[in-house]
C-alpha cells in the first residue's frame, strides 16, 4: 500500500518559511534543557557540529563514533571546498542563486523548502567556521578567497588548500572537545551503534558495542540523532573510508524508519583506477583537474600502444567531440558515464582496460610546467605516489568511482524521520541534493544541519512531546540488546570457508555492474536475484574468527557487510522502480536522443521512501510528492 508522507513544510513564501518556522517553534526552558539527554551517533561534520551546539544550549549529549577519535570521521577526507552565497567576489551570487543552482543540479528531485533554507544558512556557516579558527584560503588583503566549482557560474566555494573537509571537521571537533571538557558531552569513541531502541513508537535510545572490549551496552535518551554518513561502501570499492557503513541507518530502517531514494548514488569521474585484486579502496583526484586536463582514449579498440605512441589523429577526445560547449567540464554524471561507454567499447586504457587518459600535455605546453605545478602540484604528487607514474610526462589514468550517496533515511522539514524522536542529519539523510549533488555542497549541508537547523527543531520536538521516563531495565531494551547479541553470536558460529571481504567484494562488483553508472531493467532484475543468493551464502559460509568480547575487526566488518547484503536489495529495488533517469540514477531505457538523462516528471516527481517489511520481503513504497514552485522543471543540457 502506498501512502503519502507529510514533510511538514511550513506555510508562507519560500524565503520566509524558515524565519517564520523558527518563530513558531516551541522552546525548551533553559533550566529544563539539562534534563533532556540527546544521543548523537556520528562525529563527522554533521554529528560533531550538532553535538557541540546542543551541548552549548544546555542539553546533555552522548556522542558516538566508531573511529578512535571523533576527529577521524570521513568528513576529514573532503578536499575541494564548501559553498556559501556570500557574494564576496561580487559576481552576482545570492541565497536565491545558490538555491536555484542546487535544485537544478539535483535534477529536480529535492525538496525546495529545504534547499532554500540551506542556501539561507550557508553564510552563517562560514562565519562560524572562521571564528573557530578554520584557516580558509585568503587574498593578500586579508579577506577570504573563493574558487569556482562545477554546476555554478559564480565563485562561491571557500577552501582550505586541498583539505577543506579536514579543517572544517577540526573546527567542529574542537567545539565538541570544548563541550566534552565542560562535562556536558560524553564521548564514546570506538563504539558502534548496532540497534535503535524504539519504545511506544518513539526513538528512545541505541544499543552499542564497545569495539575494544566487545561490551554490549544500551543508552537511553529523549531523542536520537543519526549523523552516520553515506553508504557508498555497499559497492566495496569507493572513495569512502573503509569503515563507512549503512549499519546505523539500516538498523533504524529495520525498526521502522523509511529509507528514501537509495538509488541516488553519485559517481565521481576522476578517481585513480583499480590496480588489481588486492585493491581495497579508490582515491579521488579533485575534479578541478578537468579544468586543464583533456580526456581521451584511442580511436581503435584494443590499442595497447603506450599513450605517447598514439598519434594525435588516432585519439578520441570524446567529451570535446560530444559536448563541444562544455567539453571536458561536463557534470560528473556525464563525464563518468561516457568513460564507461568508451571502456565498454574496448577502448579503455591501462592494464585492466578500465581507465581513460587525462592528459596535461597541452596545458603544460600552453602554460608551462610551473603553472601546472602551482595549480595541481599536490594532486600530481599524490597520483605519482599511488600509481608510480609521472603525470607531467605521461597522461594520468582515471576512472569513475562511487563517491557520495544522495539517498538516506527519509526526514521531514525538521530533519525528523517518520519515527518520532529519530533525527537524521548530514549524508545519512536523504538530503537536499535530490538526484545529484553539486560539488562543495555536502560539507555545507552537514554543517547547516548540525549547527543551525537541528538545534532548533529538536527543541521544538522535546518541548512539544510527552516523553516518559524510562531506564535501561525497560523490557524493550533487553529485547534490543538480545537481537544484537544473537547476531554477533551467529556471525561467530558459522566458521565457514570464505572471508568477509570476499563476500563484500562479490556484492560490490555486482552492484557496480548492475546498479552503478548506468542501469537497465534486466541487469537490475538479475541483481535482485543474485543478492539474496550471496546473502544466503554469507550466512552459511563466512568465516569470522575470534570471540565477541575482544577487539575484533573481522566481526565489525562482518556486521557491516551483513547489513550491506540486506540494504543492496533495497538499493536495486529502488533503482528498478524508478523508471526514469535523473541525476546519478541513469536508466539506459530512459534517455533522450542525445543520450541525456530523461526525467519523467509526470510519474516520478516524488521522493521514494521505503518501509521495511522483513529481510527478503518487498518493502512498501511511500511517496512524498515534490512541488516546484520557484524553480521550474526543465531538461538539463550541456551541449
Amino acid at each position, binding site marked *: 500500500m502506498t501512502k503519502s508522507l507529510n514533510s511538514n513544510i511550513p506555510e508562507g513564501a519560500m524565503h520566509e518559511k524558515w524565519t517564520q518556522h523558527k518563530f513558531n517553534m516551541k522552546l525548551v526552558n533553559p533550566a529544563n534543557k539539562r534534563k533532556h539527554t540527546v544521543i548523537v551517533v556520528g562525529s563527522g561534520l554533521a554529528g560533531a557540529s550538532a553535538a557541540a551546539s546542543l551541548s*552549548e544550549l544546555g542539553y546533555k549529549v552522548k556522542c558516538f563514533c566508531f573511529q*578512535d*577519535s571523533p*576527529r*577521524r570521521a*570521513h568528513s*576529514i*577526507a573532503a578536499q575541494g571546498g564548501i559553498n556559501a552565497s*556570500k557574494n564576496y567576489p561580487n559576481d552576482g551570487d545570492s541565497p536565491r542563486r545558490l538555491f536555484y543552482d542546487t535544485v537544478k543540479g539535483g535534477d529536480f528531485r529535492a525538496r525546495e523548502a529545504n534547499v532554500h533554507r540551506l542556501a539561507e544558512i550557508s553564510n*552563517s556557516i*562560514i*562565519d*562560524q567556521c*572562521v*571564528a573557530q*579558527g578554520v*584557516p*580558509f584560503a*585568503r587574498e593578500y588583503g*586579508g579577506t*577570504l578567497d573563493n574558487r569556482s566549482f562545477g554546476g555554478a557560474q559564480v565563485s562561491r566555494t571557500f577552501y*582550505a*588548500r586541498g*583539505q577543506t573537509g*579536514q579543517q572544517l571537521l*577540526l573546527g567542529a571537533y*574542537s*567545539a565538541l*572537545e*570544548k563541550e*566534552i571538557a565542560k562535562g556536558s558531552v560524553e564521548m564514546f*569513541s570506538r563504539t558502534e551503534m548496532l540497534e535503535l531502541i524504539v519504545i511506544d513508537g518513539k526513538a528512545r535510545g541505541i544499543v552499542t558495542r564497545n569495539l*575494544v572490549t566487545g561490551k554490549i551496552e544500551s543508552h537511553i535518551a529523549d531523542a536520537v540523532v543519526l549523523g552516520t554518513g553515506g553508504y557508498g561502501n555497499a559497492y566495496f570499492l569507493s572513495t569512502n*573510508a*573503509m*569503515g563507512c557503513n549503512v549499519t546505523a541507518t539500516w538498523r533504524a530502517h529495520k525498526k521502522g524508519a523509511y529509507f528514501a531514494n537509495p538509488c541516488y548514488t553519485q559517481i565521481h569521474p576522476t578517481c585513480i583506477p583499480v*590496480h*588489481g585484486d*588486492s585493491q581495497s*579502496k579508490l*582515491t*579521488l583526484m579533485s575534479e578541478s583537474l578537468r579544468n586543464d586536463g583533456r580526456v581521451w582514449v584511442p580511436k581503435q579498440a584494443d590499442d595497447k600502444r603506450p599513450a605517447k605512441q598514439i598519434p594525435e589523429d588516432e585519439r578520441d577526445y570524446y567529451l570535446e567531440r560530444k559536448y563541444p560547449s562544455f567539453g571536458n567540464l561536463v557534470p560528473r554524471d556525464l563525464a563518468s558515464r561516457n568513460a564507461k561507454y568508451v571502456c565498454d567499447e574496448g577502448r579503455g586504457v591501462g*592494464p585492466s582496460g578500465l581507465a581513460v587518459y587525462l592528459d596535461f600535455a597541452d596545458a603544460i605546453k600552453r602554460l608551462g610546467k610551473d603553472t601546472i605545478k602551482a595549480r595541481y602540484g599536490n594532486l600530481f604528487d*599524490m597520483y605519482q*605516489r*599511488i*600509481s*608510480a607514474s609521472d603525470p607531467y610526462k605521461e597522461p594520468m589514468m582515471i576512472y569513475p568511482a562511487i563517491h557520495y550517496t544522495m539517498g538516506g533515511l527519509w526526514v521531514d522539514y525538521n530533519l525528523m524521520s517518520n519515527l518520532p524522536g529519530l533525527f537524521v542529519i548530514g549524508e545519512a539523510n536523504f538530503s537536499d541534493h535530490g538526484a545529484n549533488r553539486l560539488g562543495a555542497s555536502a560539507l555545507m549541508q552537514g554543517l547547516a544541519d548540525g*549547527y*543551525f537547523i537541528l538545534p532548533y527543531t529538536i527543541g521544538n520536538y522535546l518541548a512539544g512531546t510527552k516523553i516518559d521516563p524510562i531506564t535501561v531495565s525497560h523490557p524493550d531494551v533487553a529485547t534490543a540488546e538480545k537481537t544484537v547479541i544473537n547476531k554477533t553470536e551467529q556471525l561467530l558460529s558459522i*566458521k565457514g*570457508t570464505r*572471508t568477509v*571481504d*570476499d563476500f563484500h567484494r562479490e556484492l560490490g562488483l555486482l552492484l557496480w555492474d548492475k546498479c552503478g553508472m548506468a542501469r537497465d531493467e534486466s541487469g537490475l532484475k538479475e541483481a535482485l536475484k543474485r543478492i539474496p543468493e550471496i546473502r544466503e551464502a554469507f550466512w552459511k559460509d563466512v*568465516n569470522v*574468527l575470534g570471540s565477541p568480547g*575482544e*577487539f575484533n*575487526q573481522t566481526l565489525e566488518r562482518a556486521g557491516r557487510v551483513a547489513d550491506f547484503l540486506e540494504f543492496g536489495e533495497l538499493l536495486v529495488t529502488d533503482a528498478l522502480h524508478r523508471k526514469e533517469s535523473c541525476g546519478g540514477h541513469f536508466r539506459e531505457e530512459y534517455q533522450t536522443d542525445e543520450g541525456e538523462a530523461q526525467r519523467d516528471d509526470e510519474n516520478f516527481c516524488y521522493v521514494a521512501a521505503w518501509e521495511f517489511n522483513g529481510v527478503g520481503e518487498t518493502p512498501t513504497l511511500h511517496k512524498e510528492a515534490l512541488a516546484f514552485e520557484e524553480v521550474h522543471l526543465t531538461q538539463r543540457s550541456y551541449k
Partner: protein
Amino acid sequence: MSAKTIKLTLKVWRQKNAKSKGKFETHKLDHVSPDASFLEMLDQLNENLTLKNNDPIAFDHDCREGICGMCGAVVNGEAHGPEKSTTLCQLHMRHFKNGDTIIIEPFRAKGFPVIKDLAIDRTAFDRVIQAGGYISVRTGSAPDANVILIPKDASDSAMDAAQCIGCGACVAACPNASAMLFVSAKINHLSLLPQGQPERYSRAKNMVLQMDKEGFGNCSNEYQCEAACPKDISVENIARMNRDYVKASL
C-alpha cells in the same frame, strides 16, 4: 603497473590485549603486488591467516588516503615506513624488494597503550585538545567572516600547522616518546590567528600540562618527529610553543 609480484618475510608484533606481553610472529607472504599499498599487503596476509583459521592481525586504518590519521606502525624502525611525507596507507609495496624482511611494530609509547597487535589507544591526544585546543565561540555568535582580516602569511602559517592529522608518528619516532610536535602544531594553528589570541597563553599552558599528565616524554630537540611526520609539520612549532609556554608560566 607491473605484473610481477614479490615475496616477503614479515615479522609482525602480536599482542592479544593491553595486558598481555606480546611477541614477534613471522609470516611468509607471496604474490604481493608492487602496486598494493602497505595496508593492502596486510589485508592480503590477513585473508591468508583467516583462511587458515589464524587470528588476523589487528591494525587501525580508515580513509586509506593519508588524511584521517588512523593508520600507523613502525616499519623497519621508521614510523610510517621509509618514504618521506607518506602515511602507512599511502606507502606502496614497490618500495620493497623481492625477498625483503619487514619488521612491523606498533607505535610505542606509554601514552599510547597497545590495544591489540598494531592497534593503539591514542585518546591521550583528544584529552590534550580538551585541555584547550579550541577557540571558545558558541554556535551563532560569530561576526561576519570578513570582519576578521587575516594576513595571507599568517593564514598560511596557521594552515601549515593545522594540517597535522594526529596520527602520533611524532611520538613514535621521538627517542623520548614526546608529543611536543603534535601539541605545538595544535597550539600554533590557533595562536597564529587573530581569533586565537584571547586564549593564547592559557591554551598553551593547559595543553602542555595535560600532555605531561598523559605520560609523554620531554623534547630533547633531536627533530626526529619532523623527519617522520607524514604532513611535514615543522619543529618551529615547538620553538614557538616553548616561547608561549614560558610567557604563560612566569
